[in-house]
């Protein structure tokens, strides 16, 4: 079952402050991912992998084409959906783990993660968050602290816990293991495999070929536009 697909997706950036320079990044992208499948986006640096992933999430505004997401049984086009509908789709269907955690002042790691839980009581959310953080080897003494002072790897694991706790049907991952040691990397691999086994659709960027080989069913190569065609 197709969970997410793009059709003739394009994206460019028009940089008004740089004299109106136009950067064409994506053109004619047709891409899809099934339930239970993980597709890895590959391609050289600057090709547009992150741009594609962010467009799928509605974080970047697509220039043209369609991005259809299976949301509560119906296909929703992220490109034309109202902002309010995109908020709803993100809430219930589309999870996203960015490369870096955006820290919120004063909010503890545990609350950041628990906040992202869906459809459970506050107490359950906290229990789930604590369990996920523990699984990702975040020591209990850090759970109550705001992650601003955490190491890069610790912050990334908070971010991962936040992305996984909602168990969204579709998960978008941008370099989820980039700053992790091997032990933690292996835990993330396990979590991705479990998500697939549970029928989630995963789209990810994994520079680490070990991770990619372990989790991806397929590769989708994003070509730099000048080399395409």
């Amino acid at each position, binding site marked *: 079952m197709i969970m997410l697909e793009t059709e003739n997706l394009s994206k460019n950036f028009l940089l008004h402050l740089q004299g109106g320079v136009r950067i064409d990044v994506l053109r004619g992208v047709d891409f899809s991912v099934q339930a239970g499948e993980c597709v890895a986006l590959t391609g050289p640096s600057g090709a547009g992998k992150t741009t594609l992933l962010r467009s799928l999430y509605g974080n*970047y505004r697509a220039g043209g084409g369609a991005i259809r997401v299976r949301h509560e049984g119906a296909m929703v086009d992220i490109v034309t959906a109202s902002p309010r509908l995109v908020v709803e789709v993100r809430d219930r269907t589309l999870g996203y783990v960015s490369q870096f955690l955006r820290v919120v002042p004063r909010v503890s790691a545990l609350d950041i993660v628990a906040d992202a839980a869906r459809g459970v009581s506050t107490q359950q959310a906290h229990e789930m968050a604590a369990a996920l953080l523990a699984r990702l080897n975040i020591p209990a003494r850090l759970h109550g602290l705001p992650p601003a002072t955490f190491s890069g790897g610790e912050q990334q694991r908070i971010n991962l816990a936040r992305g996984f706790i909602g168990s969204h049907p579709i998960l978008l991952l941008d370099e989820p293991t980039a700053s992790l040691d091997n032990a933690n990397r292996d835990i993330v691999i396990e979590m991705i495999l479990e998500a697939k086994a549970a029928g989630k659709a995963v789209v990810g960027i994994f520079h680490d070929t070990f991770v990619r080989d372990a989790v991806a069913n397929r590769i989708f190569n994003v070509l730099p536009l000048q080399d395409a065609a």
Partner: protein
Amino acid sequence: MNDDTLLSARGLNLRFGAVTALDQVDCDLWPGEVLAIVGESGSGKTTLLNVLSGRMAPQSGVVWYRDPNGHLVDVHAMPAPALRALHRSDWGFVHQNPRDNLRMGVTAGGNVGERLMAQGSRHYGNIRAEAIAWLEQVEIDADRVDHLPRTFSGGMLQRLQIARTLVTHPRLVFMDEPTGGLDVSVQARLLDLIRSLVRRLGIAVVLVTHDLAVARLLAHRVMVMQRGVVVESGLTDQVLDDPQHPYTQLLVSSVLSA
């Protein structure tokens, strides 16, 4: 307007002499949604907030509000007493300067309890208990309940104003630069407080701020204003990470990290 919008404005115009403060502004807000209005000084943000909340009349255009019974009311055609009643209960207004809202000669507890009384509560013991509960929610010690606001710091005054505003459980709160004029650590605490209260109580908020990081933290959607015109609007993270309009690109590029 859409079936379930809480507040909708269409075609708002307002000029002050040669200055166009609002130029054909449309705006929609849904229950529980936080909408940020951003833009540089003088772009018309406060004017828009005042017009949306009925405090200032537009020269043309209309503002609709859906009352708790589901009826649409034209905010600028309402009789003044009805508008005042709305401001006393269903709506709240958080001013940049808390002194514009608080009564400085009345105790902290009195400031909070007064809104309840204005709404019709009469039982003194309940009012005091509720006032104390709200002071605690905004992290003001219960033993300050009988102190006058002038003995409070700027950050405490702002939190007191928030308690006074939220005690009536409004469905819609207008906020004008709620963290302006506070130093950074106090701002962070206040923002966190606003964020958690608004989420937990499901309040709809129209928030004016010139600080894009505040919009990022609190708002679902943003509207960008320039010289009275809404030049761009959309999902907060989309507008901030992939701004389309030259003016929004300028705003975003002029801050280090929002």
